[in-house]
């Protein structure tokens, strides 16, 4: 098989997957420009009675758009804390052995393995006791439980791929540890930092149960606001679709900014 044909096969595979990935999203966008009656009454590739009403409702109703703002605030706090505590820890795990290192490393991940249903009540009690209920910081701290282990594991994987000789050479060249870490080491694991940042953002952004349990008004996230569209009078499909389209936007912007980190990866040549 010549390389040209293999290339075409790969492109075809990728195109097919992208189609598979985009069609449900297209359907959501399609729905977001329809009225509820139109969604439920007929099948159509394009909205027959095009309307912005669903988006207007979200942008003019404070209880809707404040959900986006609240979510963005605690997700940002969470991502920053997660990465800044995970970076040194991942370095320690990848470079040194110490008492209990393997156990602690695996224990971290076990915090992602607890089925949430029963844990919500003690979470509620704990956060009420320490006075963090209905605050952005409270949700951000609660989300550290699953984001910090994830960030540590991802970063450790990338750091272990960097040969230890690089650390040693830097010390011989007279770099201090912080200087070495920021100037030399971080650029080498850019791809890992990019992926970890995106995943922290993503998991915190879509998490519903904890965020809903720990908030009532002031920090109510968009995912909780969305559950309002299910009511006794039936589903408000159109508003939900519009809100869904809008929840994709911030994450798409985040991945747009970290894409260079992910795609460039190993930058040995520039050291």
């Amino acid at each position, binding site marked *: 098989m010549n390389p040209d044909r293999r290339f075409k096969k790969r492109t075809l595979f990728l195109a097919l997957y992208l189609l598979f990935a985009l069609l449900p999203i297209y359907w959501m966008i399609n729905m977001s420009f329809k009225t509820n009656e139109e969604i439920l009454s007929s099948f159509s590739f394009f909205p027959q009675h095009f309307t912005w009403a669903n988006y207007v409702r979200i942008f003019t109703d404070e209880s809707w758009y404040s959900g986006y703002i609240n979510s963005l605030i605690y997700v940002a706090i969470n991502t920053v804390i997660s990465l800044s505590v995970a970076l040194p820890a991942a370095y320690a795990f990848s470079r*040194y052995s*110490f008492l209990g*290192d393997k156990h602690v490393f695996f224990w971290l*991940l076990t915090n992602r393995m607890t089925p949430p249903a*029963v844990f919500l009540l003690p979470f509620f009690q704990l956060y009420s006791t320490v006075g963090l209920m209905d605050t952005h910081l409270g949700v951000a701290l609660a989300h550290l439980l699953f984001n910090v282990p994830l960030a540590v594991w991802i970063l450790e994987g*990338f750091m272990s791929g960097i040969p230890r000789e690089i650390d040693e050479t830097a010390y011989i060249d007279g770099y201090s540890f912080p200087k070495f870490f920021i100037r030399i080491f971080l650029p080498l694991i850019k*791809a890992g930092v990019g992926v970890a940042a995106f995943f922290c953002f993503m998991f915190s952004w879509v998490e519903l149960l904890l965020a809903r349990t720990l908030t009532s008004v002031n920090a109510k996230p968009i995912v909780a606001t969305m559950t309002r569209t299910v009511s006794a009078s039936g589903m408000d499909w159109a508003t939900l679709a519009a809100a869904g389209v809008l929840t994709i936007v911030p994450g798409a912007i985040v991945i747009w900014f970290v894409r260079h980190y992910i795609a460039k990866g190993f930058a040995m040549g520039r050291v």
Partner: protein
Amino acid sequence: MSTTTKPVNQKAWFLILPVLICVAFSAIVPLMTVVNYSVQDIISPERTVFVGTEWFAAMMRDEELHGALLRQLGFSFSVLLVEIPLGIALALSMPAKGWKSSAVLVVIALSLLIPWNVVGTIWQIYGRADIGLLGFTLQKIGIDYSYTGNATDAWITVLVMDVWHWTPLVALLAFAGLRSIPDAYYQAARIDGASKFAVFRYIQLPKMRGVLMIAVLLRFMDSFMIYTEPFVLTGGGPGNATTFLSQYLTQKAVGQFDLGPAAAFSLIYFLIILLLCFILYNWMQRVGTQKVEVEQ
């Protein structure tokens, strides 16, 4: 974690201390509380009776739970079998440079960013034969498809939805792993005249081992706890074809408000995930080191 020998340095504990504080703050108290619930009969918040391991024994005997566990295992392993190879294949075929690379990255990540209840809702419409693209198309081709009426269709729809939703996670991790391989490796392979497959088998796959391990474990534990999407899409039906463990747990904890048994079940559930992840982790680590030996 790699198994190569590393210098012993107990001071490294200071580097992981912030992580321990952050995680332990939210981890220990709730876990202890749930353990406390699991050994009591909670009649009201003021009246509780110590019952020892009774709830655990009752849960272990529960026939419904056995059924849900088997369905769960079948589902989670299907998820891994489809999503891991598909994610690797995607990462290998994604363009590495230029605007195309950026565009593909963004498009692939989109499905991850939709809240889970919306994912279920969208697929609920998408799969309907009268008003949804997928159901409509399948009906037109002549396949009698109904995710609400047919158990197999429902199961496959939940699986396809999960593949659509989560394969990007595997693909992004694998892609980042691939991009971190220094060019020198590829140059060496080119000089040796290595085939495409050999490059994949002896360079790309071993170098992706770390990220793939994370991808496998993450996909395993998250699919094992899947709740929102099938609940919204099928409500666990038809019959109990798509009732997985966490839905059963939520019925117990929220529906019947049996806090004691639900807590006992949570702990058993947690231990099952822990055990399976531990086995997967150790197995993957062994496979990884054997590969390195082959390389040398």
